[in-house]
């Protein structure tokens, strides 16, 4: 794959910029020699057509929701409505500086406040911060809130452990560790749910809390959720809810009603904002009454028709974001919530869960289904035993030849050769049928022509890539000849 550095020629440019008043030498002459850059950065020199063609060519070697079905488990790759893109580009948001005095940015503050109210209502919880820039950032914020709560109660250094079901999200352990907690893994039971007896044994005076993913990464709703949260509370801990899977129960249940003390929401999953090839997202965090005093500052507060920033929160953990959060992501997500309303949100979860259970029903004959229960928005198959010498990795690569993005693979860790499938509600039945058909054909191929899978993909811009070589001979930037 050629890079932009392979195009162009010295002296080419893609933009016409204003002239200087003085000469470059005159201006640079004012900068002391020790500070002045000796050798300039080596950047591409391309014309505008060079530039546009290069990135258009790259875009054609990518696959997005706008390209096709993207059943990536726990990522909720639903359609990204186009109205929202236009709204987020409005100069009233995009060109607004965050350090303007509050009276100059009332519209933007009003929007943030409105979003806060909507999300508090959806979560059924009384407090919120919009600052976290992504789900994992929300998790860290939540863990820091727990830490401050413990500090305030004189229990810091006493309650040092976070319990983590083995079906929880991948970022959770790292987030707990960043806040200084140690992590204790909790096994799932045969139903794929938190093992309540194991939980009872793990609870004690050294436990700060639990991080729950509801429904969990098997796509199974924790049917004992009220027991679980009650046990944790009774033992003096708090309950963190990972909201990456909120699309499963939107408009039907609220974490606040299940005993959640902290809940993060991935706006780039449940609330339809595009994932951008890996970001930006947004991970607002809602909290129960017990954690209100510790929320990040500033707080956005409405007073009559005015909005103001409140800094006077002496017990706050401080800022987790330099400003107010990923505002342009919030603009898109608010537009989504306002379009759907309560009823539309409820329909979204119905459509998502219907699609997941439909695909599960179609595929469970051909692939092992380790936990055969009612699924929520996603379900987990295993590629184990599907064909001689065939692994889930091969199934994923073969799906590309059929024009589909593969599901999440090898997660959750508790299912060997896992395939985690999340279709979302925005895919029509004919797409689900075509995907199921491809999966069934691949299962047949795995038995009859396993090499077709082992050598896949065949129809992509590049074929199977050598990941070991990338580590053995690290090339993490272009070699532009001898440096400096």
């Amino acid at each position, binding site marked *: 794959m050629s*890079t*932009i*550095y392979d195009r162009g020629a010295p002296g080419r440019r*893609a933009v016409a*910029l*204003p002239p200087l*008043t003085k000469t470059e030498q005159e201006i640079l002459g004012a900068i002391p020699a*020790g*500070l002045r850059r000796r050798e300039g950065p*080596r*950047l591409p020199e391309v014309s505008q057509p060079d*530039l546009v063609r*290069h*990135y258009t060519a790259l875009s054609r070697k990518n*696959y997005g929701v*706008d390209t096709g079905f993207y059943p990536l488990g726990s990522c909720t790759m639903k359609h990204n409505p186009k109205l929202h893109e236009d709204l987020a580009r409005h100069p009233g948001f995009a060109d607004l*500086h*965050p*350090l303007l*005095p509050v009276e100059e940015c009332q519209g*933007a503050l009003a929007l943030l406040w409105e979003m806060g109210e909507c999300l508090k209502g959806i979560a059924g919880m009384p407090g919120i911060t919009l600052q976290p*820039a992504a789900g*994992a950032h929300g998790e860290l914020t939540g863990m*820091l809130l727990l830490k401050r709560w413990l500090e305030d109660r004189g229990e810091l250094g006493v309650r040092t452990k976070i319990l983590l079901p083995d079906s929880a999200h*991948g970022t959770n352990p*790292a987030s707990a560790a*960043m806040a*200084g907690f140690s992590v204790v893994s909790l096994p799932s039971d045969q139903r794929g749910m938190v093992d309540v007896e194991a939980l009872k044994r793990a609870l004690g005076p050294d436990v700060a809390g639990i991080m729950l993913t509801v429904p969990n990464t098997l796509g199974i*709703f924790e049917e004992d959720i009220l027991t679980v949260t009650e046990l944790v509370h009774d033992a003096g801990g708090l309950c963190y809810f990972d909201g990456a899977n909120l699309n499963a129960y939107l408009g039907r249940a609220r974490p606040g*009603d*299940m005993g959640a003390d902290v809940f993060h929401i991935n706006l780039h999953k449940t609330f339809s904002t595009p994932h951008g*090839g*890996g*970001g*930006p997202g947004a991970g607002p965090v809602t909290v129960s009454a017990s954690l209100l005093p510790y929320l990040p500052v500033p707080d956005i507060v409405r007073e009559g028709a005015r909005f103001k920033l409140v800094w006077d929160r002496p017990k706050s953990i401080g800022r987790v974001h*330099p*400003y107010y959060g990923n*505002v*342009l992501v919030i603009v898109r997500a608010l*537009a989504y919530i*306002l379009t759907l309303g*309560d009823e*539309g949100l409820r*329909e*979204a979860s119905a*459509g998502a869960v*219907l699609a997941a259970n439909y695909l599960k029903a179609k595929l469970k004959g051909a692939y092992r289904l380790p936990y055969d229960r009612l699924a929520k928005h996603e379900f987990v198959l295993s590629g184990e035993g599907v064909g001689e010498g065939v692994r889930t990795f091969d199934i994923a690569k073969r799906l590309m030849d059929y024009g589909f*993005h593969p599901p999440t693979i090898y997660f959750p860790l508790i299912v060997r050769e896992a395939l985690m499938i999340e279709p979302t*509600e*925005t895919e029509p*039945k004919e797409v689900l049928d075509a995907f199921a058909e491809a999966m069934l054909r691949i299962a047949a191929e795995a038995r009859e022509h396993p090499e077709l899978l082992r050598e896949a993909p065949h129809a992509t811009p*590049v074929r199977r*890539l*050598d*990941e070991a070589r*990338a580590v053995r001979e690290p*090339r*993490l*930037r*272009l070699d532009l000849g001898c440096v400096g």
Partner: protein
Amino acid sequence: MNPYLPHTAEDVRAMLDAIGLPDVEALFNDIPRAVRERYRPVGLPARDELAVQRHVIGLAEHSAGRRLIPFLGGGLYDHYIPPVVGHVLSRSEFSTAYTPYQAELSQGTLTWMFEFQTMICELAGMEVANASMYDGATALAEAVLMAHRTVGGKVVLAPRSLLPHLREVVATYAWGAGLALHEVPYGEDGRLALGQIPAGTCALIVQQPNGFGILEDLTGLKDCLDKAFLIAYVNPIPLAVIEPPGSFGADVIVGEGQPLGNPLSFGGPLLGFFATRMAHLRRMPGRVSGQTQDVEGRLGYVMTFQTREQHIRREGATSNICTNSALCALAATVYLAALGPNGLRRVALLCYERAHALAERITSLPGYCLAFEGLFFHEFVVRCPDPEGAVAKLRRAGIAVLPPDVLAPMGVRDGFLVAVTEKRTEGELDRFAAALEGR
């Protein structure tokens, strides 16, 4: 009601039959009844696209600040964004993709990530860069955590001239990791005045240019630090003409990439960048794209060194970061490619030239002077007897500068901060000076 739902009544019936359930509500029987009964709606009606558009645009237009001429900085800057950047970003094969876990379907993303890493290394004078962090502030905080992991020690030296909102984010992360921030004072020239290095120091932070807009002299700083990290937080625009901190032995260079082709966005999303030495690669947070080959020997790219990351290493990971600021990093990549070395230098020099021209005009007015004598780049602190009054005069002339209280945590109570970019015209500079003069 939900306009994005494609299922017809017949589809729903057929799907339920395949599942073997009587109705949609039966799909939710596993949620405890008590939980379902407690559910209360938010009270939101469904709205059509036109109504949503009217409402949201109404809010956008309600912020008076958007009509002011911005001389605003403090970490984010109003630079010209060539339209070609937005046009590339609107290719939805980029914007609607997920993280490039499946490399064969993500060569577009992985290739530009590799380009981005190359360009950031070039700007920073470093050996390796990741594919982005949330923003400059959290990138700085993560650099501090990395320093602590690498060299031990729980003391972090942070200049008093560090922008307050950067300091506050670093302080939150540092508290989470059990580290202590110590303040390093500045001298009369506004530059860092480093004294004794306390025992247990794991990092010294320098901001280039600093929170007052003044260029720091990094010569010899690393020599004072022994094993401790020199972490430089940089503005990428001045780096076109200023020697990068990599040449002064910096261990990590981070910064806010918003000035590179990204709008102000009321503070988010932003773009953190993170560059370091190859020796520290395995301790670096965040995703990295690496070059390799496919089975036919064709060049391609994959996400690599993933054993550092949270989904593999779990609680032992270098960071919990997963989703980052990919699309903002693509904007920066296209911006840097569009400008090239000459264009970027031009932008930097235009900023410098115009900022200095404005400073000259302001300081020629009676009662106005620069707060510090150190050389500034494109942002400076104006000292005057009544900063609130001066800012109000500017406001009446349709000009926005940061509220003076932004400077208070950095110890300045008699001034205000002014930033000038290549977008500000001669006429706007005149208007600024005239407003202060009361003309």
